[in-house]
Structures are given as C-alpha cells and as structure tokens.
C-alpha cells in the first residue's frame, strides 16, 4: 500500500494526497493507493499540483495498516506524518 506525501508550499506543512484531489495534513484522510495505475494517476495529479504551486516534492511512500490506522513504513516518513518524537 502507498500514499503520496508532500510539503505544502505556502507553509511547508506535511500533507497527504486525497481521493478528491485535495491535500490533507491528516494521514487518515489520505488516499491509499493499491495498484500501479492508480499510483501513476495520483502521482501525475500531484506533480501537476507542484507545478501549480500547491505542494513541493510529492513522493509515493510505503504505508502499512496498523490496526485500522495508516502509518508510513519508513521512520522518516512516520516522523513527517506524526511530528517530532520529542
């Protein structure tokens, strides 16, 4: 499973690409991508949003379902999603 993560341009906050094409600060509202076609489509839309100055540097990241909540697999992306651990 994957999601698309980025920083919002205007404030730098971490956001997740949503089903409706928007961006949310809450990973729970992010679109969960399960196949290659969907990944390509969403990433294309995300890159278009980068060009339109909504986000910076969108990336597809691996996520895992932890008892119903989505969590990035990589520690770095988890820290981005949930904030500093300190």
């Amino acid at each position, binding site marked *: 499973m994957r999601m698309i993560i980025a920083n919002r341009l205007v404030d730098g906050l971490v956001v997740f690409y949503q089903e409706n094409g928007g961006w949310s600060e809450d990973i729970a509202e992010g679109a969960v991508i399960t196949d290659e076609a969907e990944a390509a489509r969403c990433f294309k839309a995300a890159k278009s949003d980068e060009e339109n100055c909504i986000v910076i540097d969108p990336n597809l990241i691996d996520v895992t379902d932890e008892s119903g909540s989505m969590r990035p697999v*990589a520690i770095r992306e988890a820290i981005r999603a949930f904030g500093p651990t300190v």
Partner: protein
Amino acid sequence: MYRYDEFDQKLVSERVEQFERQVERRLSGELTEDQFKPLRLMNGLYLQLHAYMLRVNVPYGTLSSRQMRTFADIARKYDRGFGHFTTRQNIQYNWIKLEDAPQILRDLADVEVTAIQSSGNCVRNITSDQYAGCARDELADPRKYCELLRQYSVLHPEFSYLPRKFKIAVTGSPNDRAAVAVHDIGLRMHRNDAGAIGFEVLVGGGLGRLPYIGHTIREWIDPEDILSYVEAILRIYNLHGRRDNIHKARIKIIVNQMGIEKYRELVEAEFERIKNGSLKVPAEEIERIDAYFAPPEHETLSDEGGLLAAQGAESPEFARWLDSNTVAHKLPGYSIVNIPLKAVGKPPGDVDADTMDTLADLADRFSFGEIRVSHRQNLTFVDVRQRDLMTVWRELDALDLARPVLDAISDMICCPGLDYCALANARSIPVADDINRRFVDVDELADVGELKINISGCMNACGHHHVGHIGILGVDKRGKEFFQLTLGGSSDQNASLGDRLGPGLPQDEVPEAIAAIVEQYKTLREEGERFLDTYRRVGIEPFKAAVYDSEEPKVVA
C-alpha cells in the same frame, strides 16, 4: 556591540523587500522551486521535514536583550513558542510558514538582526569565543575582526555563489573555544615580540563526511591585511573548488587534494597581487569598529572570593554551581556565568519564548543587557558582578538553567536530527535525552568531570561528533537507527578527530555504552586526568573492551 548605521539599515531593509517580492513570485509560480531555492537559502530559509526552518544570524554569538526579546516574540507569533541555538552560534525556528518569512525578516531587521547568508553557498556567520572581551586568557577581543569580516563577506558580489558553504571562526585566546581548527578558515590570534596583534591563518578544516583538521597556511598576518588574505583564499577556492559533486565541493577537499604547499603558493601569489589594493584595512577603520566593542561601564571592584566562599559554605548547591558554571572574568569583582541549555527532557539548545524574555530581563539587570551564544549550544552572561552571583543563581535555578553541568556529560552538543532535519538518518535528541537521564546525579557528573559528548544525526556532522571527546553518529542500517561511537576528538587548540570505537549500537544500548566508557575511565585515570587525557594515554583498546566485550572490561596497567 555593533550598531547599524544608515547604510546597514537601508541595505538590510532593501534585502527584505527584495525577498518579499521573491516569495510573491514563488507563490504565484513565476519562480520555480529550483530558481527560488538558492534565493531563500541565502536568506536562511530551509524546507525541512515538517515545515520551513529559518536560521537567524547571531554575529559571533553576541546578542542584546532587545534582540532576545524579539526572538521570543517571533517564537510566539510565528512559530511554536521556542527557538533552537546552534553549533554556529545562530538561532533556528522549526515551524515557519513561507508566507510569514518576509515579515519575520522585517521584525528582525527592526532590531538589527538578519538571516542573510546564514545558509547558501556563501560565507556564513562568523563565529567566535563566547567569552570574547572578558576572558582572562584572551589576547584581545576578537569581535572587531569578526565584524570586519562580516561586513566584508555579506553580499560580497564575487563570493555569493561559491562551490559550497564557507565557515570562518576566530579566536582571541590561545585556549580555543571557537573550534577554529575545523573551519574552512580559522583565525588564531597571536602577539608578536613587538607586542602587536596578528593572526595565524588556518585553512581547510572541516567536519562532515570527510573531516579534516585545518592546515596553517600562514603563521602571521597583520590585521590590516586580513581582508586581502581572506579574499585571496576565497578567490583561489572559488576558482578551483569542485562544482561537480556537492560532497567534494568544500575548500578542505581541494586543500588536501592539492596539498597545503600548492594551495599556499596560489593564495600567496594572489595576496601579493591585491594586498595594497582597496582591501587594506586602515588602522582608523579597525579603531572605528573597535569602538562598537568598547567594554561596558564596569565598576571598579575588588575580588569577592571571600564572600563567595562564605555563601558557598551556607549553600553547597550554590558552591557547586559556582565551581561548575562560572568562569573567572578578567576584571576583579566580575564573573562569567554559563547557562547550559541542557535540561532533562528538553532538546539540547532549545529555549522557550518565556524563558527568552526572562533571560533578557536578567541580562538587563545583571550583565549590561548582553547575552552570548556558545557553539556548544549554551548561553552566557559575561559581565556579572560577583556579589550578584547568588541572586543570578537563584533566578537561573527557577528556570531550571542552573544545573552544574558545564563541559560535563550532560552538556552535550546535539543536532536536531531526524525529528526535524531532512538530511538526518537517525534521531539524535532522544539519544541525548537518554544519556542525560542516565547521568542525572550531579555528584557523579562532578566526579567524571570534563567529558564533551557530541551527537550528530547524520554524516553532515552538524553536531560536531568528530571532535567530541565522545562522538555519537546516527546511521541508518536497513531502515533502523544505529549509533556509532568515536573517542578522543577535540576541537580546541590541540584538535583531533575521534577514533571509531566499533560497530553501531541500537539506541537503547547507547547510555550503557557511555556508562561503560565512563567506568573504564574512572578505573584507568591518573591524578588530574580528564577523560580525554586518559584516552590519549591509554588508547582505544580498553574502551573497546569495556563496550563490546561480554566479559569484564580489561584493565590496562
């Protein structure tokens, strides 16, 4: 301290206007991120893991109470209520919005503070000794030379696009508290037989992926020639430095590739060419700048050792703090007070807005309204009357800023690490906190004595791990955080790079590894030896054994 004249103020204000328009063009799409990035970096604005980070200059670590109050206001208004002091004597804010950045820079400009060239491939903040102007072991106050170099290097048209960042540090004392040996240019003050002041120039020092101790490129330069010589070094670097690989682009790479003799030859030739030109600094100019660093109106006092001894006898805690955190001032009756920003449970170097305000008030009451920032991520009041020390101690204690830990285990350097930084491989702050909690007992800290632990969350070494007595480097091994220890580093006038102790340890094993090293030190130390001295005498094997062997640590006679 230096005060802006009309020219300075106009330049800084115009720079803010310029940046504001650049931000507008970025937000409208007229500038791409690739075009905007070098521009925002030259105004100190990074994009980190969670938000934009703004790095604000504190020139050579000197801050007024008024400026500190503005730092507090910015933390409250535009950030999450705190700031972070760095290993280059700067302050960083972690939660900045791009759209707020121009106004923040405007607020800073109102108190003569900028973020100009705090990042980018240009000459960065000039750093120095936090005790400048007040230390007993100082030859002369280095800050006038720092200010000279600052004015020279800020917005220098030829050197705004160097191959990579460029860091200069200056020490006015033979006891180097500014780490000059691991800077791109290090300036070490000397006095010649005629009693005149001059500088030894070191070049090509640095940390990061490929650490180097700087080479002496010139034993002596007169102050009037300092700008010409620095220009010669920068020009040769700008011409020859690599631009094909950012990991090979610092001056240390070409100095060590070419060899110091060849690099010196090129620099000396350029220096000869330009030294009688417009960069020769007239004595009047040095005096003019020096006037800004005139000492405050000290009273003529006597040493109050008797009073302090009596107060210490009544309050052992006060005595312990005096012994640990205060340093002799060059004037009788005065003292230098160190404020370690290393409370248990707080990230090293972090200060919240209310505390900043209180420290500003204390500075006004007890230290002529001035605060210094140390590259070890602490603050200092440098002009406190000895008779005020008891009061100052109580006030600092109320802020939990009076732990007697200066230069001890708790007084760690620690970068923001993977909790904040986009470059990091591992989290450094939790490691610092674990160690801080493991060594909470102040008697034990005092018994161990001077032990500088430096922690970096990645090879970029912003936490100066290479030059820690114990260095800790966070690495990523197959997606997990591991920590490699080094021993025997030092950033002072006998600079050395640490030796690798062994394979990386998981986070939960680091505090016990430190404890094992400390125990081995206590077992092996001779009278008067700090950890570093013992290490240099006995070598790494006993410590390797202490940490990695499953049996009892081997004791080397």
